[in-house]
């Protein structure tokens, strides 16, 4: 056995990969940022260039992906039953937050990054609404336990990960306004969960 054949055998693999990626590239000449092709390339059955050309191409997070939590609110409805849009922000007007300030998410959070102040009526009795709600995303470990154990489907895990910034003492403390997102957003990013929750809610409402 000649000395060096093992080396050449290893180099064979590298060479074959180079060839394969060029073949893959030429096969799809001109369709660089095609969505369907991108999905195929990134799946288990893909071959060829495996690179995600961020930011032109983005890997869409799967439904279960969890990043920072957000609070779900039901939008305010106008007289036709359609959600009213706020002209300033382009988002639905807040009708009612689903959160009742029960505090289970704050209790179950492992690093204790959720602070909740329960609202009170003018007489001083507690109201099932949060007056203030803070999440420190520099302490949050994206575990998702808050969303898993919320009994009112009020806090869910968001999928926005492009949160980098130049300072952290103000912008990394998410308050009630920053955390609230409409239920339509929740339905958009979690379709199967939304369908399951709606059937459960309707079944409970029937009883």
């Amino acid at each position: 056995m000649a000395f060096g054949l093992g080396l050449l055998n290893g180099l064979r693999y590298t060479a074959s990969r180079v060839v394969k990626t060029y073949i893959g590239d030429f096969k799809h000449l001109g369709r660089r940022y095609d969505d369907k092709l991108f999905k195929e390339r990134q799946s288990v059955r893909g071959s060829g260039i495996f690179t995600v050309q961020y930011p032109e191409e983005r890997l869409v997070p799967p439904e279960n992906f969890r990043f920072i939590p957000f609070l779900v609110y039901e939008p305010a409805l106008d007289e036709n039953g359609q959600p009213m849009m706020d002209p300033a922000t382009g988002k639905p007007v807040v009708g009612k937050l689903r959160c009742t300030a029960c505090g289970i998410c704050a209790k179950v959070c492992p690093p204790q990054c959720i602070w909740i102040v329960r609202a009170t009526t003018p007489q001083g009795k507690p109201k099932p609404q949060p007056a203030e709600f803070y999440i420190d995303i520099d302490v949050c470990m994206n575990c998702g336990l808050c969303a898993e154990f919320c009994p009112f489907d009020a806090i869910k895990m968001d999928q926005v990960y492009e949160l980098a910034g130049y300072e952290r003492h103000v912008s990394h403390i998410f308050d009630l306004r920053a955390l609230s997102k409409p239920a339509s957003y929740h339905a958009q990013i979690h379709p199967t969960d939304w369908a399951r929750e709606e059937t459960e809610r309707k079944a409970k409402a029937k009883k």
Partner: protein
Amino acid sequence: MSQEQSQTPSSLITSEEEWLADQVRRSVWTGPLSKFIDLLDLIYNWGRRNSIWPMGFGLACCAIEMICTSATRFDIARFGMELFRATPRQADLMIVAGTVTKKMAPAVVRLYNQMAEPKYVVAMGACASGGGPFKEGYNVVSGVDKLIPVDVYIPGCPPTPQALLYGLMQLQKKIDRQSIRDVPWYRKGISEGVPEPILGPDLMDARRLEEITALAANPEQLAARAVQFHKPTKGEKKE
């Protein structure tokens, strides 16, 4: 920051706009060279932002996401950052990826000091930004910005490779906004660097030694500094 240029004697300023224009003239380098400086900035920043060489400073779990970012799928080489230098002397960027512990703090500061200007620091992950889930620990520094100045914070635990790339793009935007008129490394004088923290009975920041000694000798003053948090009792009303 003023340069030698025409300065209006104060007796000739009659209105607010003139005063403002005079201040701008004193502080900002304007004039026929200004357009040339802008062009120079463009080329200078373009070269710098497209070939940032990070220093491999992976401490913990975020380091694995950093390695995945430099692997084939999220190819950091497309941004010009594939060359992770082992030594700080040749690096431009220190991506602090992972929890900074007190035992590691002197090493972090020493490496920061050994980097040559222009240098940038990216705090990747919740631990490097603000202590992360381990913030309550006795051996954890609550955020690397307690030790060294940070340019970009990337939250997440761990931030996905796409989040890291977004953060690096923010850094590139920051570099684009810099100008050679006012960058710190063209100022006169040598930058001293950050003094290294000392590992004593607990981590001691070398910039606060007198304060520590004074407070340690005065327990009442020390106790008064702590902001008391409100521990609720049952049935208590909100004030």
